């Protein structure tokens, strides 16, 4: 069995002639990796192809598509990134006809690093590596098990660390608005650090991630204050799944539930008064 890197390189080589470029990771100067657009003109660059650390490749795709909306590209995506792309498609941010998905299956240690429940792709026609099962998320479980005052104290402390770099928003593949509500004084107070509690920034962002977060954990990764914000998104994602039977990125045509009318049984599961 050949390793994933070799197989991926071969897959990209096969795809390259048919597309304008393939987005994947490349080892740059000083061993620093970054998303890169591999092209057939410079296929020798594939020597520098990398797999890890996971980088926000869909974010780079977003930037390229803004300038080249009709570009025919391929992208190497892990399970979470594939879900991100599906959600971008569902929000009319890209055209899947022009995009070849090369699915990269995560390995055990990678999945454990991300505490990922779905470290595999489902839509990609081309795949590299063997899909593995999801792993548990001990951090989320630990925080959820806290009592209400403990949670309050925990999050107060975490949010006090926030330096409001907006990095979690910038790096999120699902944050594609031109103007962001988080920059609007109506919702997020300006000029105060540590930000007042409860944090409007984090609460509003968590609400905006409802039925959108694909659990890629890029936000946590980039956070200079190490705030485990994806815990919120994951807990809410679980509730949305249980109440409305919806999972972001799982299906190409299912619409986010909060936009639609109530279906049979949904009201009963929502916990609202009868």
């Amino acid at each position, binding site marked *: 069995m050949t390793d994933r890197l070799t197989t991926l390189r071969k897959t990209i080589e096969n795809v390259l002639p048919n597309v304008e470029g393939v987005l994947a990771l490349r080892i740059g100067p000083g061993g620093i990796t970054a998303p890169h657009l591999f092209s057939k003109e410079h296929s020798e660059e594939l020597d520098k192809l990398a797999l890890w650390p996971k980088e926000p490749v869909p974010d780079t795709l977003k930037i390229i598509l803004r300038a080249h909306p009709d570009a025919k590209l391929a992208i190497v995506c892990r399970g979470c990134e594939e879900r991100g792309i599906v959600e971008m498609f569902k*929000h009319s941010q890209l055209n899947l006809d022009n995009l070849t998905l090369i699915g990269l299956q995560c390995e055990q240690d990678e999945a454990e690093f991300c505490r990922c429940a779905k470290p595999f792709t489902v839509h990609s026609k081309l795949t590299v590596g063997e899909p593995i099962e999801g792993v548990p998320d001990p951090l989320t479980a630990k925080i959820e098990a806290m009592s209400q005052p403990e949670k309050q104290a925990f999050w107060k402390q975490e949010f006090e660390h926030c330096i409001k770099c907006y990095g979690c928003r910038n790096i999120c593949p699902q944050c594609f608005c*031109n103007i962001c509500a988080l920059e609007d004084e*109506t919702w997020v107070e300006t000029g105060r650090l540590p930000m007042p509690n409860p944090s409007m920034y984090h609460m509003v962002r968590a609400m905006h991630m409802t039925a959108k977060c694909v659990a890629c954990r890029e936000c946590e990764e980039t956070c200079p204050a190490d705030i485990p914000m994806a815990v919120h998104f994951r807990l809410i994602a679980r509730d949305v799944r249980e109440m409305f039977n919806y999972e972001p990125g799982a299906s190409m045509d299912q619409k986010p539930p909060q936009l639609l009318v109530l279906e049979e049984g949904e009201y009963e599961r929502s916990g609202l008064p009868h």
Partner: protein
Amino acid sequence: MKSKKKPQERVGVYICHCGSNIAGVVNVEDVSTWAGKELEKEGVVVARDYKFMCSSLGQELIEKDIKEQGLTRVVVAACSPHLHEPTFRNACSRAGVNPYLFEMTNIREQDSWVTTDKLEATKKAKSLVSAAVGRVVYQKPLESLFVPIDPNVLVVGGGVTGIQAALEIANSGQHVYLVEREPSIGGHMAQFDKTFPTLDCSACILTPKMFDAGNHKNITMLTWSEVEKVEGYIGNFTVTIRKRARFIEESLCTGCGVCWEKCPKKVVDDVFEAGLGYRKAVYTPFPQAVPKYPVIDHENCTYFQKGTCKACEKFCPTGAIKFDQQDEILTVKVGNIILATGYDLFDARKIPNYGYGRLPNVFTSLEFERMTNAAGPTMGKVVLRDGVTQPKSVAVIHCVGSRDKNYHNYCSSICCMQSLKFAHLVKEKTGGDVYQFYIDMRTPGKSYDEFYQKIIHEGVNMIRGKVAEIIEGEGGLIVQAEDTLVGKQRRIPVDMVILSAGLESRADAKEVAQKFGISCSADDWFIERHPKLDPVATMTDGVFVAGACQGPKDIPASVAQGAAAAARVLSIIGQGEIEIEAATAMVDEITCVGCKQCVASCPYQAIQFLEEKGKAYVQEALCKGCGTCVGTCLPKSITLKHFTDEQIVAEMIGAMRVMKSFEMTEVA
């Protein structure tokens, strides 16, 4: 980054005493003095209290201040805005302030009448006034939009309801497109023999109306046609209609009937004759059909299926048969739409213990209607399935599929009277015994109960009880039921059973509702705007419902609704143009990211997606101003006029500020 600067406005605040209704509990003088002082920095330049703000003197007070003090915003604290908001908006308007720059806060129904403690009530009034002042400075002038009304009308469904609506409108001089999916108009009523309680002949009263509709210069009849797509909004609908190929050139056909006489192919007619009779492959459903042109039934025509025959073409004296005719797609522009799509009959096969479909001599109500019709398959003779034997005893079972939690919970409303009519017809035609099995007898209608009394006197056996089962036995059928009045099980042998099947919504009602942008109830009946006060309008302006598509009803009620819907439409046409809600939603094209979330969330399909721009767009004429899209839009690109985020937030902060200040003084 959006940075918000507070607008500088000159606000007038008016506190109403409402006699002692408010002043008896709230210290109104205190509130107005307080507002003049404490809310000065919020822009309040005048604060007054007055005995009755809604009186002409009260209104003049506002108008005078607007003119003399140069007020740009007005706040009235009085009763519910549902009572007097229009009054004060008009007063502002008269004095030159846009009515949307007025805000009303409710210190009567929601303060003085519900609060016991006078001090608390006064404090609440202050925070409500502060909230209103906070909001009013952010309010923007709005102008109502007027759209012209296209006077043409679309009526969908050519039953008696649709015919009535179409005739009313056409007689007033407006043009109607009447769309019917069957080959002829007439609907269910054309299938009936007699109508209750007068027992007049159904055809005799319907045919003249059908004829009038068919020959009316203002009615374009589109039978054998279906609506495919509806776009636009009140006054400006564009409707796409598929006119299915009849394979008959209408301009040449005289309706002579030679084609169906010569057609060799006999087909069971399970639409008009309810499966009891036959028709040909080229046919009109019944002799009085309007229009008179037949259709060729593609599925059963020998030529279409096997490639030879063409007998009709050979004998047609005018050469009207056109085998190569294609479906036609028509696009019509109309200003209003009336849906009169009627009902389907409950399928009695769904109740296996009644044996319909298995036991030959169990008939449905519609089958019996055809049987008693003089023009029907048995020439009006009441006979068993063998076509010859006259039944000596007949059972009529009420509430088949209705008032039954396994099928439909609702009462189908017409079955009691229909069943009594059947009893009379059986008695009249056979003289046999009739047993009526009913749950409750419901005869609320003019002369309906008199009819019931008359039937009882004809010697019909009434048994109060739901039939458990119908089985074969004793040379016929046995009806098993509990007679709840005597508390005994009854087994009644009969020759024939008639199931008075309930009415249900059309199988495609949901699809149709979606097409026209209206909603369905849990049972798929179309939902009216208000069950009592607006029974024929829908939540979509310009789309009306009439007749049984809105819920089970008898002929008089259907006809009344048809006429009512026509009157509503004519009143709109008479206005020439229609005012549209001013407080609609609006998309900021610069910030819209084109994610289409709002499009999916709008209850009215009022948001369009402009593909070429990649932006959402609110069709103002369709928008009702609910603001659901605003709650959905993540970059806050959609604003609901008059209920903007900054207005609501300012109102909330206005109330909170005062509540917090009281808290502080109390602690001190």
